[in-house]
């Protein structure tokens, strides 16, 4: 209970920090957003009006105070293009992105963790080498390129899966059919990371004294790796999943664009080209908060996985 409270207050501080950072980062780089949004030929009056509308004519600390106050009440400004509240726009496209990110993460975990354990178990063997080379290429090809290549192969050549969209109509099956390729590509690209990181986490545990003792006592190797070592490596592996979640959100943006799927990524991109930067700021904020929430949940899970951590 105490732990939960501490975690919640930590979470509040971090979220506040994220709000602060999104505010200042955008203002740190020189240049005038109003000028950028309206272009080079904007009149002085138009610039002044937009600056007033965005609150840019006020001192920075006033802007910051207002920004935080509004953020607390869930007001992240509104889209300059549609005029709708930014939060509304984001919540509208959140489900599509959440489905893609979740499906991708499931694929990544289901492939990545067992492969990581397997390669650690057979360190130095040819199967270890082969898997690690594939994983190296997996983290080295841009995810959007993998997406394009898979469209070329699976939609245009083999015609197994549709290349575009998320099927707004249609039943669950058509929806899943549209999800296979994007989630598969996202998942495989993230799986390459998870495999590499899981392997090093396992190797580290396998080098510990308790494992050496278990081996000396004649515990079968299979049991040593998949029961004893895995149990000890679960916390680092959970941490890996947390780290890759942030990474996969970034990749999901690119995947959404490649497959023309609706979602937060497509929304942010549209907002960027429309120079609708309040919407971009809000979108980035929401995704960063999502990362923090997922990592806090994982932090809680550490306690369940490793009883030593829950008493600390």
């Amino acid at each position, binding site marked *: 209970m105490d732990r939960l409270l501490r975690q919640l207050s930590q979470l509040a501080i971090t979220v506040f920090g994220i709000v602060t950072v999104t505010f200042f980062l955008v203002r740190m*780089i020189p240049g005038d957003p109003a000028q950028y949004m309206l272009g080079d030929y904007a009149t002085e009056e138009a610039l002044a009006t937009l600056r007033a509308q965005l609150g840019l004519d006020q001192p920075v600390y006033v802007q910051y105070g207002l920004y935080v106050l509004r953020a607390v009440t869930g007001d992240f400004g509104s889209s300059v293009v549609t005029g709708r509240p930014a939060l509304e726009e984001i919540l509208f496209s959140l489900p599509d992105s959440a489905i893609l990110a979740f499906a991708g993460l499931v694929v990544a975990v289901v492939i990545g963790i067992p492969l990581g354990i397997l390669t650690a178990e057979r360190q130095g063997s040819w199967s270890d080498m082969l898997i690690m080379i594939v994983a190296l290429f997996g983290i080295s090809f841009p995810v959007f390129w993998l997406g394009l290549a898979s469209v070329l192969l699976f939609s245009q050549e083999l015609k197994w899966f549709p290349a575009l969209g998320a099927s707004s109509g249609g039943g669950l099956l058509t929806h899943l059919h549209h999800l296979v390729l994007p989630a598969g590509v996202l998942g495989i690209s993230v799986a390459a990371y998870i495999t590499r990181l899981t392997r090093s986490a396992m190797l580290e545990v396998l080098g510990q004294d308790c494992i050496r003792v278990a081996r000396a006592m004649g515990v079968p190797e299979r049991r040593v790796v998949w029961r004893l070592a895995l149990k000890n490596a679960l916390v680092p592996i959970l941490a890996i999943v947390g780290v890759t979640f942030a990474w996969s959100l970034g990749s999901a943006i690119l995947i959404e664009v490649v497959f023309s799927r609706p979602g937060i990524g497509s929304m*942010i991109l549209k907002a960027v080209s429309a120079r609708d930067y309040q919407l971009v700021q809000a979108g980035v904020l929401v995704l960063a908060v999502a990362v923090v929430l997922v990592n806090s949940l994982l932090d809680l899970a550490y306690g369940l996985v490793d009883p030593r951590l829950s008493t600390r």
Partner: protein
Amino acid sequence: MRYFRHPGFLIGVILLTLLLIVAVAAPWIAPMSPLETDLANTLAPPSAAHLLGTDQFGRDVLSRLIWGTRISLQVAVAVMALSLSLGMVIGAVAGFFGGWVERVTVSIIDILLAFPGFLLALALVAARGSSLETVIIAVALAFTPRVAAVMRAVVLTIKPRTYVEASRAIGMGTMRLLFLHVVPNSLPPVIVVATVSAATAILAEAGLSFLGLGVQPPAPTWGNVIADGQSFLASNPLISLSAGICIAVMVVALNLLGDGLRDTLDPQMRRSSGRVL
């Protein structure tokens, strides 16, 4: 050099050297100008004159890829230099001085780490328009907290060592101590992180260019070439595919370099450097 006995490291160094040569020699080895259009000869299939064919403006794809090596290497080096210098100073100050300075810095680092790096870069480019400089600054800012976190961890392990205590005891000033003992000792693990950052920076730049937010067309960047080829994937797949392979070769090289350095260094570093991947 013990590093060169590591096969991965060796392959990485060779690949990077080749890419560096291509980048430096681009004006001489590229068959044509990367910007020269030939509207009578658009989307041509591979031929003796155009080994990888031409794009929708009749530009020679191979020449664009060769010149693209320059921009990618430039991004990698600039991002590495920026995030390394900024991150090392921030991490060293936090780890060395301790107290409230450390607490504040660490919480700022933690907050910045919550942002998906690519998203952070995207937001910065969105607010300030896109150019090579903005892309470099944006990606470097996204990686600085990662370098800082590792630097701080290293400084914390070096600080209590006897030789540091001894130097302090004989009256060495804080700054001298930092530069004479702490910084040199922290270089190897920090360089590992920086190599990985450079690899990710290239992917991030390519991603931004692909979205049309990176270095603006018609500049020959690999991401731009992939974006150009996307509309002609069915008829001329070679445009996008070849550019992606260029990116992968450079990123593989940097990752091999990073893996090699990490394996050769203190095996204890395996975890801390793995964590920031």
